């Protein structure tokens, strides 16, 4: 075998070996790499029962109640939901219908005491008038589907 072919083979086999090793590690730690749990996972007992963890979902429409710095809202994944209590400043993107991730601990079965609220941003970017237009056409479509 020529020296160059030997080195080429070494690089390819080495890279393949490292890839397999990393893949195995990532598979083993799959659950630990999860940034947040959904309310359904909490309900099914897949989230930690005590201690601090993160909960992610959508802020239910009309559920936000503000009293000074104290905010209460319902976090849902459309199958299950939890009531979140939080005291502090909310990020700009926090609003109803928005995806958020809250960090804190569970108190009771459906109540969550958050120490931090993070807003999750979607992948969509558009000007306000286009967003309004899209909303109108979606509503019109929904109406047409109903009648």
């Amino acid at each position: 075998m020529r020296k160059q072919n030997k080195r080429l083979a070494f690089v390819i086999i080495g890279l393949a070996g490292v890839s397999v090793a990393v893949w195995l590690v990532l598979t083993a730690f799959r659950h630990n790499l999860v940034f947040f749990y959904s309310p359904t996972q909490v309900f099914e007992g897949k989230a930690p029962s005590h201690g601090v963890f993160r909960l992610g979902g959508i802020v239910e429409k009309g559920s936000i109640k503000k009293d000074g710095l104290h905010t209460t809202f319902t976090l849902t994944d459309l199958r299950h939901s939890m009531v979140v209590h939080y005291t502090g400043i909310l990020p700009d993107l926090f609003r109803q219908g928005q995806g958020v991730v809250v960090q804190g601990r569970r108190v009771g079965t459906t109540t969550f005491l958050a120490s931090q609220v993070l807003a999750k941003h979607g992948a969509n970017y558009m000007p306000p008038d286009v967003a309004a237009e899209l909303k109108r056409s979606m509503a019109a479509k929904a109406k047409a589907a109903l009648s």
Partner: protein
Amino acid sequence: MKLIHKYSAPKRFYELAGMLAPWFATLTALLFISGLYLGLYWAPPDYQQGNAYRIMFVHVPNAWMSMMAYVAMALFAAAGYIWNIRLADILAKVTAPLGASFTLTALVTGSLWGKPMWGTYWVWDARLTSELVLLFLYVGYMALQASIDDARRAAHASAIIAIVGLVNIPIIHYSVYWWHTLHQPASLTLTSQPKIYITMLIPLIIMSIGFMFFYLTMLCVRSRSEILWRERRADWVRKLVESRS
């Protein structure tokens, strides 16, 4: 193959890069000026983020380039290691600091955007962490390069880091799909409709091409000075210096 051989001689490449650099630099300047003008004045504000989204015209191209530069560096390093191409060693070496600065810029701009939008400068989610690992890979590569005096041995040793680190690239790219992350998934993919409105997409694409040409410009400039240093005892360099002075 003959062409590669012809231009991979350091002296030839020095001349070729010197010829290309001004063209690349001009293109970069034009793309940056038009991209920033369109991005900062012409593009409309976002329906949710207002004007804060405009940081993406710098953040996204830098994030892309941080990965592209890494792939380029690893390929150069591998070619230098396997086929003993001196020019490939040089290109890999000068790419590292460029890639590291793309990575750092992507991390810093993302962090500045994250504070008002997410509510935090930093989270340890899979996307942010794997991008930070990329920065450490670049720094590790540069540190190893710097710690070995002999250019040939430095290139071979650090090539191994570059090649092994290649595993991180698909992890960065797919992290937002494999795990729940705070970072949003890609708005632009090859397989689906872009999720960015056209008037926002145009400046983003112009800025991305601009950063690509910025990389090419810097690659030419930096590899020229690296070639001069390595060939400082060669006849052609001596003649070049004498003709200038």
